[in-house]
């Protein structure tokens, strides 16, 4: 394990913890959903560093892509119904 990869892992891990904290403390739900998607995206980078490319692909496509849009679809439905 070279020092570069170790540093990359450290930075990504810290960024994930920061994004998770942001998702918990922010007041806006949209920001929280986006921060959770960011946690997933950074997790897929961490999986590549951990020599798991299969898992990284799945996490990038499903965890950060489809999940975020599911949240936005439901939030859009709720907003449309709440507005009328």
């Amino acid at each position: 394990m070279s020092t570069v990869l170790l540093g990359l892992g450290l930075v990504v891990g810290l960024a994930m913890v920061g994004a998770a904290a942001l998702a918990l403390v922010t007041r806006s739900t949209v920001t929280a959903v986006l921060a959770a998607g960011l946690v997933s995206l950074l997790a897929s980078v961490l999986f590549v560093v951990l020599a798991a490319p299969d898992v990284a692909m799945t996490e990038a496509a499903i965890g950060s892509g489809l999940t975020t849009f599911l949240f936005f679809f439901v939030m859009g439905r709720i907003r449309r119904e709440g507005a009328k």
Partner: protein
Amino acid sequence: MAQIALATGFVLILAGIYGALTNRDILRMIVAFTIADTGVNVVLVAVGFLPGRTAPILDAAVPVAQAAERIIDPVPQALVLTAIVIGLGITALMLAYAYRLFRLRGSLDISNFTELKW
């Protein structure tokens, strides 16, 4: 490396559980659950990681004869692969129920749903 990922995953699980227990908004609780889900996946992959080895794919860089000395544990990866897919299914189910609850009360605040409270 494995220790860093392990610590990150555990912190994410704790943050997710704390957020799911303290938030009042149902959507925010679901967001916290997805964070805890990601944390569990990171911990599982980190446990399968062995230092100085490479991904479990046999090619020119990893000949079959030396595979057992060169690759990391493939079993946790297969496990996490299925866990991610099921995680999306669980999130979608929770969101559908959240929408139903919103239709019922016109609100997403968990303190408005007191039927099962004691």
